[in-house]
C-alpha cells in the first residue's frame, strides 16, 4: 500500500510543477505579432512564442508527460496491490482511486490535445483541473486512500468497464469546463482591449469554443455508454436495470444537461459565451454527481 501511495504523492508534486510551468509559460515574454485574421490562425500557436516561452513550454510538456507516467505507475501499482489483497484489480474502486484515475484521464486527454493542436496555453487550465483532482484525492482521509477489499455488491467484472468509462467521460467534461473558463477569460480581455501578453498565447475564441464542444462530444456518448453499462450491471446484480438510485439518477441528469447543450448548439446564439458558461455549469454538475452524491445523498453507489 505504501508503495502506491508514494507514487500517487509523486504524481501530485509533478502535476503541481507542470501547472506552475504552464502558468509561467503564459507570462513569458512574446515578441509582438500582427493579429491573425479571425478564424485563420497563422500556423501553429508555438510560432508566436519567444525563446523563453518556447523553453518553458517544452519543459512544461515534459513534466506533464512525466507526471502522467508516474500516475500510470501509481495506478498499476495499486492494481497489483489490490490483486494481491482481494483478487480484483480495478484501480478505481474507491473515491480516492477514482479521482486519481480521473486526473490520469484528464492529463492523458490534455497531452493528446496538445500533441494534435499544439496549443500549450490550455495546459494552465486543464492540467490545473487534473492537478486539483489529484490534490483533492490526496486530501481524503487515509482510510479512504487504502485498498480495502470490495464489498460483495461491487465485486464484479462490471466494475472494470462501467466505472472506467464513466470516469473517462467525466474527464472529458472537465476538459470542456477548463476550456470554458479559458474562453471567458480571453473574452473579457478582448472586450477590455487588453494587450497583455498573458492572453496572446491563447488560441482565438472560436478555437477554444470548438475544442470545448469537441470535448463534450467525446464525453457525451461515453457517459451514455457508462450509464448503460451501469444498467447492465444493475440488471445482473440487483434484479433491475434501473432503480432511480441517486447516483444513477444524477448521471442521467448530467447526461440530459449535456444533451440540451449539444442540441442548443444547433440553434443560433448558443456558441461562444453562452456555451462556455454552460460548459462550466455542466462541469459543476459533474463534480456534484461525482462527489456530492457520494457524500451528501445515500444510495447503492456510496463507495466508502
Amino acid at each position: 500500500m505504501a508503495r502506491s501511495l508514494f507514487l500517487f504523492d509523486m504524481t501530485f508534486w509533478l502535476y503541481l510543477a507542470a501547472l506552475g510551468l504552464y502558468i509561467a509559460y503564459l507570462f513569458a515574454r512574446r515578441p509582438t505579432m500582427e493579429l491573425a485574421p479571425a478564424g485563420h490562425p497563422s500556423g501553429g500557436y508555438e510560432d508566436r512564442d519567444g525563446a523563453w516561452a518556447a523553453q518553458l513550454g517544452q519543459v512544461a510538456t515534459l513534466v506533464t508527460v512525466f507526471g502522467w507516467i508516474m500516475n500510470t505507475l501509481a495506478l498499476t501499482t495499486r492494481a497489483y496491490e489490490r490483486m494481491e489483497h482481494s483478487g480484483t484489480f480495478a484501480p478505481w474502486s474507491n473515491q480516492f482511486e477514482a479521482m486519481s484515475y480521473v486526473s490520469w484521464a484528464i492529463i492523458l486527454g490534455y497531452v493528446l490535445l496538445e500533441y494534435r493542436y499544439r496549443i500549450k496555453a490550455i495546459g494552465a487550465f486543464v492540467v490545473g483541473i487534473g492537478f486539483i483532482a489529484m490534490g483533492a484525492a490526496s486530501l481524503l482521509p487515509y482510510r479512504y486512500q487504502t485498498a480495502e477489499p470490495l464489498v460483495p455488491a461491487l465485486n464484479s467484472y462490471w466494475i472494470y468497464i462501467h466505472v472506467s468509462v464513466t470516469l473517462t467521460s467525466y474527464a472529458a467534461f472537465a476538459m470542456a469546463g477548463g476550456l470554458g473558463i479559458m474562453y471567458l477569460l480571453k473574452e473579457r480581455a478582448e472586450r477590455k482591449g487588453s494587450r497583455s501578453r498573458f492572453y496572446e498565447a491563447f488560441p482565438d475564441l472560436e478555437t477554444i469554443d470548438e475544442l470545448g464542444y469537441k470535448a463534450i462530444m467525446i464525453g457525451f456518448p461515453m457517459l451514455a455508454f457508462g450509464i448503460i453499462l451501469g444498467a447492465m450491471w444493475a440488471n445482473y446484480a440487483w434484479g433491475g436495470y434501473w432503480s432511480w438510485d441517486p447516483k444513477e439518477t444524477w448521471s442521467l441528469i448530467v447526461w440530459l444537461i449535456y444533451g440540451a447543450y449539444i442540441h442548443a448548439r444547433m440553434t443560433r446564439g448558443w456558441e461562444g459565451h453562452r456555451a462556455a458558461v454552460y460548459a462550466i455549469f455542466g462541469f459543476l454538475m459533474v463534480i456534484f454527481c461525482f462527489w456530492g452524491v457520494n457524500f451528501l445523498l445515500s444510495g447503492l453507489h456510496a463507495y466508502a
Partner: protein
Amino acid sequence: MNNPDTLTDQETSRPSGLGWEEFSREVVEFFASIKLAMFLFIAIAMTATIGTVIQQGERPEVYIKEYGEEAYRWFVRLGFIDVYHTWWFTSLLGLLCINSLTCFYKRFPAVWRSMRQDKVSVTLPFIKGMKQHTELSVSSSQEQTAAQMVRLFAEKGYRVLAKKDAGEVTIYATKGIMGRVGAHMAHLSATVIVLGGLLGSSYGFQEFGVCLEGQTYHIPRGNFDLRVDKFWIDYHENGSVKSYNSTLTVIEDGASTVTKTITVNDPLVHKGIWFYQSSYGDAWDQIEVARVNIKDKSTDKVVKTVDLEWKKEQTVEGLPLKITMTDFVADFAFNSTEKKVFSKSAEHANPAVRLAVDEHNSVQATPWIFYHYPDLFEVKDSTYQFELVGYQPKKFTGLQIAKNPGINVVWIGSTMLVVGMTLSSFIYHRRLWAKIIPADTGVTVHLGGTTHKSQIDFQKEFKKLTDKIQA
C-alpha cells in the same frame, strides 16, 4: 450555424390558416423543434433531482418526522414521494419520445436523399458565401484539373460527383453522412428504450422471496419448483464479507434439472426468470436448535439442560419428560380476536418458543417460554419450570425474483443509442463544391466547403486539400 442549406431550425412564421394541412404542419413544426427538445432535456433533468433529495417510497412517518405534516401533504399531492411514476414525469418522457420521433420524421428524409444523391449544380456566389472558400489559379487544363481533383477527393474518402456545363466544370464531394445517420439512430433509440421499459413494467414482475435452507418453493409464474440447498457467507482474511452464496436447484416434474450457486453478482436464470442473491437474515418463525434449562420448582435448581431440535420430540434422560419444540416467533405478539400468536416484526426483539411437554404421561402442556422473560409463565401442576436460555437461528436467504420481457428491447435501444451517438460524435458530415473555370493561363478553381461541426478539423483538411490542388 454556418451551413448555407438546411439543418437548423427554420422556425419561420407562416400565415396561420384554418385548414388541416396548416394545422398538421404547425403541429409537426412544434414537435420537431429543437427548442422543445432543450426544454424537455432541462425539465426532465430538473424534476429528476427531486427524487434524489427527497427519499422515495418511504412510509409516511419518515416524511412527517423529517419535513412535518403540512409538507408531507404537499408531497403526496405533488407526487414527490414517487416522482418517477407521476403522470407529469412520465408525460415529459413521453413528450421527449414524440419530440425525437417527429424530429426523425421531419429531418431524416433529407439525410436519406443526400445519401443517394445530392445537389451538384450550385452558383458561384453560393461557393463564395461558404465559410471555407478559396480561389486558386492552376496552370493545367480544365480536364486535367478536374481529373486530379476528383482523384484527390476520392482518395480522401469522399463520394464525388462532377458535372460539366457551359464551359465550367462543377465538382461536388461529400463525406461523413454516417454521422448524420448516427444522430437519427440516437433519436429513434429513445423511443425504443422507453418501449422496452413499458413492456417490462406491464408484463414483467419483481418479487422478493424469503427462503429457508432445505425448503422447496413453487414458482407459479415459471411453473417449476426451486429448492434452496444451502446458504453461506465467505469472508476475507480481515473479516469483511467476501460473498453471500446460495445454492439453488431447479426442480421440474419432480426431477432436479439445474443446480447453481448464486452470489450477489451472479444470478440464476431459468425460463426467463432471474434469481438474485439479494439479502439474508435470521428467520422469524423457525430456528434450528433451542437450549432449554429445566428447573425443579421446589429447589429452584437447574436439573438438566437440553438442546431441542426443530419439531423433534426429545426424551429427557433421567427425568420423566418428553419435550418438543413446536413453534418459534422472533417478536412475540398475540392477536386476541383470532387468539393467535404471531411475530410482529422480523427482528429478534422478543423471541419465544412453544414447547409441547409431556410429563409422566400425565401432565400435558404447551407453554410459550420467553428468552427475555423467563418467569412470565409457568406450567401448572408440573414439577418443572422451563427456561429458554439460547437458540441457534435459522438463516434465510433473500432472493429477488424477476422477469423482464422488455429487457432485450431496452438493450437494443441502448445499442442504437451508443452506436448512433458515437457515429455522430466522431464522424462529421462535410461537403465540398468546386467550380473550374477557364482563365487566361490555365484555370481558376473556386473551392468552397461546409460542415455542421468540427470546424477546426475541417479547416485543416480544407487547407491540405487546397495545398494539394495547387501543387
